[in-house]
């Protein structure tokens, strides 16, 4: 499973970005191997409509889930349109966010 995480930097130890639309990077993490691909978020510097544009980036990367902080209303509807689930996390680093999410998911299953 490909998990997208909004991130301040380009590594697993980077901080999770608290704003979805305007985060500088997304890390697309493979949940089995923990291999990742950093993706620059062009929406971070856009004047308007950053939320849906960020959602488009994730859609293009084929990820169906994004771990992030706050998600705006426009971003929310765009994510829903693309069929991407947004999960709010409070973890510090990307690695913690992914591991925490996977752990939670396991207990739910």
């Amino acid at each position, binding site marked *: 499973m490909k998990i997208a995480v909004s991130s301040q930097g380009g590594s697993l130890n980077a901080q999770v970005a608290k704003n979805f639309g305007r985060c500088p990077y997304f890390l697309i993490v493979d949940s089995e191997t923990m291999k990742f691909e950093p993706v620059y978020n062009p929406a971070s510097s856009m004047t308007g*409509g950053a939320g849906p544009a960020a959602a488009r980036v994730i859609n293009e990367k084929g990820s169906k889930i994004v771990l992030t902080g706050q998600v705006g209303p426009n971003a929310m509807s765009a994510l829903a349109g693309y069929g991407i689930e947004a999960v709010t996390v409070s973890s510090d680093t990307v690695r913690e966010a992914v591991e925490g999410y996977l752990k939670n998911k396991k207990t739910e299953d």
Partner: protein
Amino acid sequence: MKKIAIASGKGGTGKTTVAVMLSRLLSKKFKVRLLDCDVENPDCHIFFSDAPTEKEEVCVFYPEVDTEKCNCCGRCQQVCEFNCLFVMKDRLMFFGELCHSCRGCKLVCPQGAISEGSRPVGKLFNSKVEKNLHLDYALMNVGEARATPLIEKLKKNLKSGADYAIFDSPPGASCPMAETVAGCNYAVLVAEPTPFGIYDLKIAAKVVKKLGVPCGIVINRSGGEDKIIDNFARQKKINILFRIPYSRKFSCYYSKGVIKENFFPGLADKIIKEMLRI
């Protein structure tokens, strides 16, 4: 017709005061049209007694998508500078409040699926408020993000027949202010002699210069720290047209919705003289 914009940069420096005073003074000799371009919060009309007002709704372009014709090719999404259009798997998602009505999507759509829709953004009002003085103003609908379409419309509706048109600009130095000042013969920058006042005046003067509109400064609540404005004016070779002294009596009238133009009778002469000189 000569067009004079009253702008400021900083808010609350006295644009409306100057615009109303100037309009009234000029209307004694000339036909004047006062345009309140602060469409987010128009207030010129407060200073005139109620006159019969005509209303007109203002609409902007809004893409209407024919879902039958749309094949989700994504050309509109590529061309949209404002991130309004998104192609989902089987449909187009449109974020209307971000649209700047550029019609790009309509132009590029190979399927002809986008047609001319329209959306109301506000209302225009106009009334003859005094002999020789006509007031036009607009009020933007709550929730709208862009003031410029209404200002554009106000300026477009300006009919010839008046000798002078006075534009009361919105505060700031961004798009609504630039839209108001652009194309004017002269700009009056109303400034107050405070650190905030000079800071914003500098930005406003830069914008006005870039627009190629000659300008002069009116210092409001003059007295005390005038020299910070004087220094800047000297440096940039901008003339100080008038100084409105701080007057408690004037403030009391103002708070009751009364602007006495005969308080500062020299204002109009000074501005017109300076304008003709340039």
